[in-house]
């Protein structure tokens, strides 16, 4: 590893590795990706990995998600099989009063071309017979699906490596100094600074700490989600259901929880039991399935809920990509960030997603 790069990406989760891969396709720059741990040891390795579009609101956020979901089949042709399945997504509701909300969602999403249907109970049960007859209805879209996050990150990395991107794992960044035309980055495992012309912050929930190294206050929260997993079951769930899905290997992943507890990645019996109860409310027949394990992930929630993407205002050649739903958005964010870095402009306007929006409030 030499010490000079054109671009350094900090964070090798689904977003960092996607940006690295997409940048590497230009085959022009010397790129290094640094991670404090090993790939998949953070948020990207502890997700249900939905590629989820249909109830992302407002519509412009839904639109961004839709474009990204549409890129998955093309991505697979380039990096390999990431087990992307466009299963269609069902978001059940239990109260008839939710139907009005659902109808408003249909109207809003239609304006950007996201086709959402409101299903009656019978229609839901016809699509997914295992769901509980207590369900009042659901919103549905055939755009939703899921992916294997482990394969996704692994294949982004492998494809980037083929394009000569370098990786440094177990190597936390401890200091960053901005000099006139480059950044000096100091890491735990290397005595000398790494110098780079451009730096991209892709630290997921750790973006706050990384931002502080540049004197920035990145407005994100850490939200813990706990997920329980069944033993592999014969395939019986065809769709991605709001809160649960059946993976390709037959395991059903179930998770509904949100807790603000910082970086604490423990699971707790309290939430596991609530999640189990919820799962049975959705699919009564799951009561007999063995739960094998649980895990938790720290998700990134920007303070207004929407992605933070683009150039960092007032910092030359520094960029950030931090968002919830990184799995859904990774192909598009990788593409757009690569465009931004290489060409200076993007095929979809990212103005709305700039970090600037938070600075204006201040």
């Amino acid at each position, binding site marked *: 590893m030499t010490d000079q790069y054109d671009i350094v990406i900090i964070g090798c989760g689904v977003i960092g590795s996607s940006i690295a891969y997409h940048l590497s396709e230009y085959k022009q720059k010397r790129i290094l990706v640094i991670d404090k741990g090993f790939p998949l040891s953070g948020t990207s390795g502890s997700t249900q990995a939905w590629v989820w579009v249909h109830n992302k609101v407002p519509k412009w956020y839904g639109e961004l998600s839709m474009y990204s979901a549409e890129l998955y089949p093309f991505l697979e042709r380039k990096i390999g099989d990431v087990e992307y399945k466009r299963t269609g997504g069902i978001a059940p509701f239990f109260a008839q009063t939710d139907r009005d909300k659902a109808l408003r969602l249909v109207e809003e999403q239609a304006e950007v071309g996201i086709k959402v249907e409101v299903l009656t109970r019978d229609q839901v049960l016809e699509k997914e017979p295992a769901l509980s007859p207590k369900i009042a209805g659901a919103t549905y879209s055939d755009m939703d699906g899921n992916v294997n996050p482990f394969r996704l990150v692994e294949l982004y990395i492998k494809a980037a490596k083929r394009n000569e991107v370098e990786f440094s794992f177990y190597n936390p960044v401890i200091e960053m100094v901005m000099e006139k035309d480059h950044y000096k980055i100091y890491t735990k495992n290397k005595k000398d600074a790494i110098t780079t012309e451009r730096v991209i912050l892709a630290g997921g929930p750790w973006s706050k700490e990384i931002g502080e190294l540049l004197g920035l206050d990145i407005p994100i929260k850490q939200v813990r989600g706990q997920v329980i997993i069944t033993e592999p079951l014969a395939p019986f769930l065809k769709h991605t259901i709001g809160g649960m899905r059946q993976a390709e290997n037959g395991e059903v992943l179930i998770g509904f929880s949100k807790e603000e507890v910082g970086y604490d990645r*423990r*699971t*707790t*019996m*309290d939430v*596991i*039991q609530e999640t189990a109860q919820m799962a049975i409310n959705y699919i009564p027949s799951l009561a007999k399935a063995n739960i094998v394990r649980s895990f938790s992930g720290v998700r990134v929630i920007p303070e207004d809920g929407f992605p933070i993407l683009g150039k960092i205002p007032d910092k030359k050649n520094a960029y950030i990509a931090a968002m919830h739903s990184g799995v859904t958005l990774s192909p598009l964010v990788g593409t757009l960030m690569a465009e931004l870095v290489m060409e200076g402009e993007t095929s979809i306007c990212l103005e709305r997603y700039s970090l600037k929006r938070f600075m204006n409030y201040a």
Partner: protein
Amino acid sequence: MKTDVLIIGGGPAGLNAAIETASRGIKTIIIEESYALGGQLKQQTQFFNNLPKQFDRQRGIHLMRTLIDRLSPLPVTCLLKHKMIGVYKDGRIGIANDTETFPIDAKKVIVTTGAAEETDLFPGWTLPGVMTVGAAQILINRERVLPGKNALIVGLNSFSAEVTKQLKACGINILGVIDKNVSVNDKKLVDGLEDKKIRVMVNTVIERATGAGEVEKVTINNDGKKEDLDIDLICIGKGLSPILEPLEILDCEFGFQAKLGGLVPKYYSTLGTSNPSVYVAGNAAGITCLGGILVTAEIAALNALKALGVLNDNEAKISSSFLWDELRSMESEESIETFIARVAHIKEFHEECELPLPASFHAILEGC
């Protein structure tokens, strides 16, 4: 459910700890995963000579009865077929049985989960008919079922040698006991087997085990010399390591002590762990002999009682130094290395926490 002391695991350590706490009138619950108390004593037909004073020389299965008989008049609740599956946010322990999951709120928890058998890696080790020596012993002594007719034993240690003799006594043909090490330090072990006309082969490994649907044949490699044996049973005896899962989710820290079975929870001279409400005893606190299992349980129980304010400092001090002497004598009888490793393990943790060892403990240290 609320209790003063919760004991995780109803084997010899758990039972003996419960006798200590319950005989002081302290509310005690034992949870045991199996359908019966006794842990691995349930199938130990061999005699144990080296036991604490209050026990006569006896077979493991009889010791189990002795312990249960002593416990039964005491105020203790034994929850059979209950397993610890997790921890709640507030520290309560999550227990599941056949019908429900519920919390137990305990002031002190004594983890006596015992040990698990280690395994060996060779092609075919997943075939039916390949099992741990412990599993084979359960089959002959608890279940009264012959696990096979012609057996090869992999790994020589005192436990595997004992079970080998028991298997032979039940009529199983033992084709050999093999060990990958070039020599066996314990000559008595080898002699004991050879006296029973059991072939012992050192510097020998399994090349592969094969069979259709179950194990039928094994190829062994003795220093380059290969030999095929027709067998229907392979028993793996690679030794024991402490069961750590419950301790891990109780946020207990671990250290490494090869002579205690590898990863072992860190603990003080009280057998208290890095979690102030959790104590550990028996094989879960480092692999030891049955005498060691019983005495560590008493030490942990004693210190839990002291922490609960049931015993005063002086009482605790006197009993504790007596028990440590007894533990040293139990463990040095079998292998002084265990006791030395245990003392080193404790010392390290005290140093790490900058907590001085109790004065009485220094006398113990000088003894070894």
